């Protein structure tokens, strides 16, 4: 039992529990807070996987920007009727859980049975080097420059689109 395995178990337990809590809580704001916790534990897992840059971006973009956006919208909209929205039809709930359990069993079978991952021998040094901001930035500005520019354009278009859509008078 080494420190990495212990850290993984703690972070994975937090991620799993918070994701379930997020789906099952009736209050939308509490769901959002559990999702933020989930994002933080995922950032910890990324650090454990030597992906420093992605871990920091996860905290800044997801836990910071996107969740603040969600909380602002929750604040803007009326969430008084939240309790009535939680479904009380037993049939759909049963069906949904059945579908997700089935998908999970399929994925688990694929991961544990049909896995070429057993032959994968992790190289610690290559892994550490691949996660640094230097290597990612180098790739991003050379081989992936066109997708990078497209992503910037996408963000600009979405900014304008969101402003137009959320305007008071929609025409």
């Amino acid at each position, binding site marked *: 039992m080494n420190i990495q395995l212990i850290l993984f178990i703690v972070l994975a337990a937090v991620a799993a529990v918070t994701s379930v809590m997020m*789906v099952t809580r009736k209050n939308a704001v509490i769901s959002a807070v559990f*999702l933020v916790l989930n994002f933080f534990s995922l950032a910890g897992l990324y650090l454990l996987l030597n992906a420093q840059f992605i871990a920091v971006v996860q905290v800044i973009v*997801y836990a910071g920007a996107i969740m603040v956006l969600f909380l602002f919208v929750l604040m803007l909209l009326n969430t008084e009727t939240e309790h009535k*929205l939680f479904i009380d039809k037993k049939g759909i709930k049963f069906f*949904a859980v059945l579908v*997700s359990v089935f998908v999970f069993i399929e994925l688990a079978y694929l991961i544990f049975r049909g896995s070429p991952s057993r032959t994968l021998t992790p190289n610690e040094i290559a*892994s550490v080097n691949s996660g640094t901001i230097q290597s990612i930035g180098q790739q991003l500005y050379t081989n992936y420059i066109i997708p990078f520019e497209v992503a910037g354009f996408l963000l600009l278009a979405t900014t304008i689109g969101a402003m137009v*859509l959320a305007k008071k008078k929609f025409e």
Partner: protein
Amino acid sequence: MSSVPMEYYLILSAFMFCVGVAGVLIRRNAIIVFMCIELMLNSANLTLVTFSSYLGNSIGQIFVFFVMTVAAAEAAAGLAIIIAIFRNKKTVNIDEINIFKW
């Protein structure tokens, strides 16, 4: 990192994805459905980072970067659409937003 088997990360990612699927099907609040979609995107990101780290190249992490960009754009546009719908119909219940239902 190498002391944790790769399957553990993948199974955690699969579990989170399935919780997200169940959430999308169970919840009726459009904003929570959106949050469940973010959860599913994050579980896919975890898979990408796992493979990237165990293979020792950074391409998977670059893909995660683009997924995050698209997720941010999607959240902004989607929440604006939800606000516009709320202005018109005074509800975020996806059962009542059924104008396209056949």
